[in-house]
């Protein structure tokens, strides 16, 4: 196909101060300025946010879904990383 498509941007919205920016979708736009403008129109028509981030999609590096076991399973048997691993006497168990 010969068409010239606008690049893809991923959009992150902070719904209110104190919260993280959260991924909410993507838009096509020719540059960063317009990506912000389009993201505002597409994702915040009802005051869903107080701040927007846009990142060109091909700048995001993602983990390989096939590498899930190597990456994440090693944490599975390290239950001592969780506070509930430790049985403390009742008197101090709210610690």
């Amino acid at each position, binding site marked *: *196909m010969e*068409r*010239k*498509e*606008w690049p*893809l941007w991923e959009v992150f919205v902070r719904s209110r101060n104190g919260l993280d920016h959260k991924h909410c*979708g*993507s*838009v*096509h736009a*020719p*540059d960063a300025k*317009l990506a912000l403008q389009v993201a505002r*129109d*597409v994702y915040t*028509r*009802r005051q869903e946010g107080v701040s927007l981030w846009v990142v060109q999609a091909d700048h995001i590096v*993602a983990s*390989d*879904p*096939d590498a899930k076991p190597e990456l994440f399973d090693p944490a599975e048997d390290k239950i001592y990383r969780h506070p509930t691993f430790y049985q403390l006497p009742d008197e101090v168990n709210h610690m």
Partner: protein
Amino acid sequence: MYTQALDIPQQNTEAKGPRTIENPAYQAEFDAKIDAGGYIEAKDWMPESYRKTLVRQISQHAHSEIVGMLPEGNWITRAPTLKRKAILLAKVQDEGGHGLYLYAAAETLGVSRDELLDALHSGRAKYSSIFNYPTLTWADIGVVGWLVDGAAIMNQIPLCKCSYGPYARAMVRICKEESFHQRQGYDLLLTMMKGTEEQRDMVQDAVNRWWWPSIMMFGPHDKDSTHSAQSSRWGIKRISNDDLRQKFVDATVEQAKVLGVTMPDPELKWNEARGHYDFGAIDWDEFWNVVDGHGQGNVDRLAARVKAWDDGAWVREAALEYARKHDARDSRAA
């Protein structure tokens, strides 16, 4: 809305996702995830037929949203008050937004936006047959909100829990906004019903024209629906066409009473034994005729879409060229 795609034989939009070998181990993992009610995400392995079905359904859904802007857009300049004009503008803008959420969800399956639009503009891809009916009077705008968006909501709520994560998340956003669409339509009709005899007649006339097309939106009867079983297995379709249609009829008949209009179906009556309304036979010849491109509006709708796309080409190119020029200037300065 607009999940008719599943029931309509048509050419597939080819998905060029990551090369997937049909691997029994992957297949087993995929099946287990579906059975557990889990979500499949964009980069996860999925059977090619699952990917193709989703591309077809999500893109048809997206096309329906943006073609759906046309019949209502017709009335923006003719809205009777500034308030109604502002409401209609917001609604039509939402439809555009819904189309964009859905195109983005389809793109995660490895098709490009341009390929999807090309399939629509060349007539290879379908959109919901409902938008091939004309909006003749202002009352049509109310009835489209009440019945067409009402049917859409019935169809869409189960999709919020569909097995493909990006589609499910887009549907959650859409459903939140769709309620405004239905309520503004009903509110518009209530206002007209409090008006003159002529205005009440306009509302009844619009209901007469839109009732049958609205209940056709749920697609063919379950026994004639070719893809339903596979889609249920995959968790893409959670409730059958006939069950959704019945739910819609039961809800809207009560709303019609409050409004003071009747449905154009002499066989419509409460069935105590079933606990549902019975209704007359649907004219499926009309449905397939419109799906096959012979509805009142098919030619105009597609022509309007193609014209908007072609007329906007110079803007898209200029914006891209401007961005390139600035990139080049920035890199020289660095």
